[in-house]
């Protein structure tokens, strides 16, 4: 236990410099970009001195080091600053849009597991047969399909040709968010407010985007589950279970899968970064009002603080998840702690 604690502490402390490196990188990149927020805001009509004045106000003329130190100082106080374009704190759009991205990511993750794990387990149980190769091929192909193309194809089939599902936004135009707005996770909010029609609407809107994410990322899970299952299936206790006459299906899905599950969980954590990247592309395709679209919009507007804020939040979540994964792994596998 002492070792675990020590490991945990070291790991947590390690997260901080990693975050700092990322933030510095982004800060530098943004300052070198051509175009600044003031020009983005004001039109060609604005006279030079007005632009200079606004730049003074926003502190864009100070030496970069000074701006950087201020920025770090603010971050230490958990203050993400103010948007340079809109009169709002950076945290405001972030808090609004974060639940949208998280909801999409989590449901996407659920689909990934729903598709990937059973398929992987099945492939392992039918090792080296046609079905095994078929499933593995599907996994590879799914991974190589660009997530935005998959999204477009699904939109085309289910949204346009079959006209079964909505293809954009989180809610339909006649569903009013202010009637149930609470945490920002609309699936939860609509249930809490008892609005079943709105719940159905929100769920339908979630379906295609998260399915897109789920299918594309399932490939890795198929492969991983399969590999872990194969290892597990050779284990002694599986042999013993078979010898006792337990039906094969119970052996595979009951015993082996449970044990293969844990590494899969950790893989989930590692794939979180890929999920976030996929979420950005999915958000643009499905007009999902999340952090990914916010990032792209603000890049367009050169709103440095918001861009930095979004990346900070992304980096934070990725670090958090990877930390959790490492800790769980250490908990399970004592070798890691040393």
């Amino acid at each position: 236990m002492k070792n675990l604690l020590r490991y945990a502490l070291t790991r947590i402390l390690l997260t901080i410099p990693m975050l700092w490196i990322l933030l510095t990188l982004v800060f530098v990149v943004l300052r070198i970009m051509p175009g600044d927020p003031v020009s983005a805001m004001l039109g060609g009509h604005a006279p030079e001195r007005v632009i200079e004045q606004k730049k003074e106000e926003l502190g864009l003329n100070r030496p970069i080091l000074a701006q950087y130190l201020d920025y770090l100082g603010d971050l230490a106080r958990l203050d993400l600053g103010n948007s340079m374009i809109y009169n709002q704190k950076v945290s405001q759009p972030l808090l609004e849009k974060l639940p949208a991205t998280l909801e999409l990511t989590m449901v996407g993750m659920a689909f990934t597991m729903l598709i990937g794990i059973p398929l992987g387990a099945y492939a392992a149980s039918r090792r080296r047969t046609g079905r095994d190769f078929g499933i593995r091929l599907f996994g590879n192909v799914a991974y190589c399909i660009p997530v935005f193309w998959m999204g477009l194809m699904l939109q085309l089939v289910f949204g346009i040709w079959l006209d079964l599902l909505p293809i954009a936004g989180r809610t339909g135009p006649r569903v009013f968010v202010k009637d149930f707005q609470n945490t920002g996770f609309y699936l939860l909010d609509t249930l809490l407010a008892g609005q079943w029609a709105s719940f159905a609407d929100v769920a339908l809107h979630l379906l295609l985007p998260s399915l897109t994410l789920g299918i594309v990322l399932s490939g890795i899970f198929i492969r991983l589950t399969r590999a872990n299952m194969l290892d597990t299936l050779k284990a002694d206790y599986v042999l013993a279970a078979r010898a006792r006459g337990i039906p094969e299906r119970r052996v595979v899905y009951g015993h082996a899968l449970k044990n293969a599950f844990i590494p899969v969980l950790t893989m989930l954590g590692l794939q979180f970064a890929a999920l976030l990247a996929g979420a950005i592309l999915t958000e643009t395709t499905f007009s999902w009002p999340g952090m990914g679209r916010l990032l792209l919009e603000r890049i367009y507007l050169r709103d440095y603080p918001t861009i930095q804020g979004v990346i900070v939040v992304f980096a934070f979540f990725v670090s958090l998840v990877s930390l959790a994964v490492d800790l769980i792994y250490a908990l399970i596998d004592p070798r890691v702690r040393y």
Partner: protein
Amino acid sequence: MKRALLILALAILAAGAVFGAGKTIVFGTTDKMTNLDPAEAYDFHTWEIFYNVYNGLLNYAPGTTQIVPGMAESYSVNPAGDEFTFKLRRGVKFTDGSPFNAQAVKWSIDRGMALKGQPSWLITDFVDSVSVVDDYTVKFKLKFPCAYFHTVVATPPYYPISPNIYPADKIIWDPAEMAGGQLVGLGAYKMTSFKRDEEVILETNPSYWGKKPAIDRVVIRYFADATTLRLALEKGEIDLTYRTLNPSDIKDLAANKKYTTYKLPGPQIRYLCFETSESVFQNKLLRRAVAALINRPDIIQKVYLGQNSPLYSMVPNGMIYHSDDFKTVMGDGNVALADKLLAQAGFSAAKPFEFDLWYTPSHYGDPEVNMAEVLKVQLEKSKAIKVTLQSAEWAAYKEKWKHKEMPVFFLGWYPDYIDPDNYTAAFAGTSGSAGMGIYFSNPDWDALFVKEQSNADPKVRESVFKEIQKRWTDEVPTAPIWQGDLYVFTKPSVKGVKIGPTLQFLYSELSMQ
């Protein structure tokens, strides 16, 4: 699945029935609102919201270019033409209960001048000072006798706002920043919900002095792109679309009998700007050569599927004093003329004229890149030209034109006020031209502009503008390409879409059957 959807649909319908006995229209658009402040907002969509939530001293009659009384019942001009006195409407209150009077008007104008927002030049270029004559009379002293000031006063920067709600020194971006948390105005509607880039809800204003609108509630839904907007209309989720659909969507919807199509000849124009002071385009022969090669019908057909009109002058079709000078002097795709001019300037197939053509990919909509690609092919029909396409997003684009980094670039224009002056002086007058990255300066031209601005006599103005348009084909600070039509698509039950050349869309005119 289908059954589940049926149940869902019924549930939503039931929910909709509960939503208010009054009429509701759901309106979809791909535009965005910027801020909520008449002193700062300078974009099409935000102004449209203002037309419905605020009210000007004078307004345009719906669907026309005629000026009618608004918050001012009448006005008079002094003989010199530089003082406008307005008699205000009595007994009107802002939606928060404070009275509307001359002090409020003066306060609003002073605030606009002090905050120096983007459109503040519309005030400061014209108005010297405002004074309160009595509670319901206000006098504007202008910097110069302005013949068309009554059209300028109808623009949003002049809209009176309540001194109790708006801070004197800050721009408002969100209703939450105002005392009371709601947008307050004098217009037919008030804003009851604001979720940036998602939805805005307007409901009728009980304190409005005019006729009560037929539609009680207008819900504006913001869509991220044209495709989803179009699909939303087709799936019946919205009742009306306005700005901006893709040409292919417009073509399909217009052909579809299920929707009512409104084609509005708009005063939006698109053109090429040349940096005339330091770039390779200092030589006007080269500017003329490039202008001669533009093939407008080809662009309109290829990129816009025939949905716009070719433009042969910076003054739009249908506006007073318009004259198709570019057509008579150069025509379209005039390779022979271009080659001749290029040869005069010393270029040939062996030694071609090379330059970068810039466009901005998103600001004007998706077809922009296609227009650039088509123009490049048109320009290279002359073997003595080599074009490289370059692009920059709007923020960087504006920087670049300010710093003279783009020798030739696409730009677009919506009028601030309906007058040929807004389409010409803004580009070729010395100060306006510099602001647009063109840096054209000619004292003769400036003199002509001053003449038409200060002279109310239509005959004088006409002769000036005819002269300016003629000279434009010689100096070519900009080359006009097309003039845009705007399309509104509605369900057949929606009536009362009256949008005129001013492009003002007054929701108070709408009704539903």
